[in-house]
């Protein structure tokens, strides 16, 4: 398999005028909506600090809270399964389906199921899995990956969606009317909801104390997927646990306001048990699959663990000037954008995705809006250092894998020049005299000069000017 490469994919994407237009428009809209939700900087500051502390507190006591969650869920009649890897998680889902004799399932939106590549897996096992979130449904039709964690089909405009639906859904007319498009999808999905043997969903927050699984959505498909079929399987990353029920409202508020600029979403589901005797609806069985897949390793690092505070609101990508220009697919990862640049290399290893932490200008636009204040830039810097580590002696997977001999040599030369005042003074004078002679067409300068004039060295350095004009040295 060829190595995923952000630069290659991004440089193609950046030239796609249509795609860039789609993203620019969409991201501008999302930024505006978020801004309208946070007009009081003090309130924003307080709420984000609270969000950060709730998530940090949960991660600080992760093992204990997970045990508590398991106990509470069991008490409520929810069956709990632990999965070390995505393969384990897929197999667990498959075993449940087999036990229940289930052949078809509907899915609510879930990034963890994307991480598991669950659809792929189930398809190979002969199980029909249909995405029921409208955006996910469309990308499933197109055979694509989500390009955004909240709005998976944001890379397509209405015309492109209309074309796809006309092609892929029997009898569907071409229409660019958003309502009509929804109706077409709804008709297909309604059918499936009633017939599906099982429903799969993600989890936004799981409350340890009460064993409550919280699910945030706008379309009602999440509620359908988790109530209509006889069996409900929820999949979640182990980091999603919070301790108390009262931890949920601030996180929910931060999530919806940061993600789509909504004060609250249309649906907010709190699932606390299967159907109880005497109840008329709800699934007969509820299963919770808890996926680790490298998360325990991330939690063990005092700095990097902040990565797992993420509540998947997508604000960091909405505000990212790089994401806006290349779109989500260029990252070739389940989770794109700034959070993807720190999470993906940690989950998959720097040997596989050590390219991602370098694909950032470190502009901090993401850090400014992240509702749980993840220091994304500091973590990008840390991962760059890990990628280039001379020893590779670290808990980060693939540490040292990106170290390149030539580049290391360059930096050690840089060090020698800049760590000695004497050497620096003499070499910088040489540069002032001869630096402009360096040809601009050679790498790495050629990347610069393709669209810019070459920077010009001044004829005298500031050191020389300061000395001449009598600025004291000490």
């Amino acid at each position, binding site marked *: 398999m060829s190595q995923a490469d952000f630069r290659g994919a*991004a440089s193609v994407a950046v030239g796609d005028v249509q795609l860039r237009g789609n993203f620019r428009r969409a991201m501008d809209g999302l930024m505006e909506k978020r801004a309208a939700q946070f007009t009081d900087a003090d309130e924003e500051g307080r709420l984000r600090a609270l969000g950060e502390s709730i998530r940090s507190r949960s991660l600080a006591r992760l093992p204990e809270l997970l045990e508590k969650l398991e106990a509470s869920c069991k008490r409520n009649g929810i069956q709990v399964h632990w999965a070390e890897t995505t393969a384990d998680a897929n197999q667990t889902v498959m075993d449940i389906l087999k036990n229940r004799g289930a052949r078809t399932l509907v899915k609510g939106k879930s990034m963890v199921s994307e991480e598991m590549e669950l659809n792929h897996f189930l398809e190979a096992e002969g199980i029909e899995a249909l995405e029921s979130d409208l955006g996910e449904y469309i990308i499933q039709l197109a055979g694509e990956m989500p390009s955004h964690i909240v709005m998976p089909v944001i890379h397509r405009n209405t015309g492109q969606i209309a074309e796809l639906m006309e092609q892929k859904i029997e009898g569907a007319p071409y229409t660019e009317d958003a309502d009509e498009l929804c109706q077409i999808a709804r008709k297909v999905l309604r059918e499936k909801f009633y017939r599906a043997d099982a429903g799969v969903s993600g989890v936004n927050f799981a409350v340890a104390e009460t064993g409550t699984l919280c699910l945030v959505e706008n379309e009602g498909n999440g509620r359908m997927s988790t109530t209509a079929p006889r069996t409900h399987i929820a999949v979640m990353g182990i980091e999603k646990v919070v301790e108390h029920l009262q931890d949920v409202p601030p996180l929910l508020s931060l999530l919806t306001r940061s993600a789509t600029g909504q004060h609250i979403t249309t649906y907010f589901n709190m699932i606390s048990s299967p159907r109880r005797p005497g109840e008329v609806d709800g699934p007969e069985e509820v299963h919770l699959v808890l996926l680790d897949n490298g998360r325990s390793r991330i939690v063990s690092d005092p700095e990097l663990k902040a990565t797992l505070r993420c509540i998947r609101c997508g604000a960091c990508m909405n505000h990212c000037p790089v994401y806006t220009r290349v779109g989500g697919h260029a990252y070739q990862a389940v989770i794109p954008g700034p959070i993807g640049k720190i999470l993906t290399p940690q989950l998959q290893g720097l040997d596989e995705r050590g390219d991602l932490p370098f694909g950032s*200008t470190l*502009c901090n636009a993401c850090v400014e809006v992240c509702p749980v204040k993840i220091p994304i830039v500091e973590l990008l810097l840390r991962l760059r250092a*890990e990628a280039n580590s001379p020893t590779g002696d670290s808990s980060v997977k693939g540490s040292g894998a990106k170290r390149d001999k030539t580049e290391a040599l360059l930096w050690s030369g*840089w*060090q020698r020049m*800049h760590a000695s005042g004497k050497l620096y*003074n003499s070499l910088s004078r040489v540069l002032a005299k001869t630096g402009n002679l360096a040809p601009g067409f050679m790498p790495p300068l050629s990347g610069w000069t393709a669209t810019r004039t070459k*920077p010009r060295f001044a004829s005298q350095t500031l050191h020389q000017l*300061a000395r001449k004009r009598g600025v004291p040295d000490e």
Partner: protein
Amino acid sequence: MPDRIYPSQPESVYFYGTCLVDLFYPDAGMAGIELLKREGLQVIFPQDQSCCGQPAYNSGYREEARAVVRSQLALFSKPIPIIVPSGSCASMMRNRFPDLFEGDPDESKAVALSGRVFELTEFLVHVLEVDLVDLGPPVNVTWHGSCSMQREMGLREEPRQLLQQLNQVQLTPLERERECCGFGGTFSVKLPEISSAMAKDKADDVRRTGAQILISGDCGCMMNIKGTLEQDGAPVTAKHIAQFLWERTHESG
């Protein structure tokens, strides 16, 4: 960022030139020194200074960065402010030195130094409280506040306050003032396609303001945007804010 408590005006300060100013924009550095001297300060420029270590640090070469920073620590030992004409270098020194030396024998030196670092416009506004008198002809300018200046140093209004003291200077803001110009240090050569696209958008934004001069407080961004404008043959020049302020406010010749 917690609000910083500013000291009263000191007698003397250090000036940290930064490597980009040193090699590419020395006039901006001299202008910064002159602006400080005019307020009655003694300005010290240690001749052995070189670089804040940021290029290596941002590239993931921390050992190399640490070695260079260590050599700088000894040069600024007096307990007086260190003035830096760059948002990103100031942020490196102020925000990252302590982490870089965590658990190191030089940690206390690094922490002490970082506490004395001020970005130039920050110092002119909050410590020196300068009053500028404009001596130049009418001109239309725009301002690019770098990401590090705005978001890491929290300096948004300071440069604007200084520019607005000049009554012949018309300041037209950029439409996407807060968006990154795509420089990002080595990002500009490691991912040149994205960097160029971002620089191009920023350059277009600059042109739309109709400004004759683009002013910035960070030489990397300036080089990036100016280089793009120049390549397109746009009739806009670029100037570091220190140089612009000094040229407008002192009697030349």
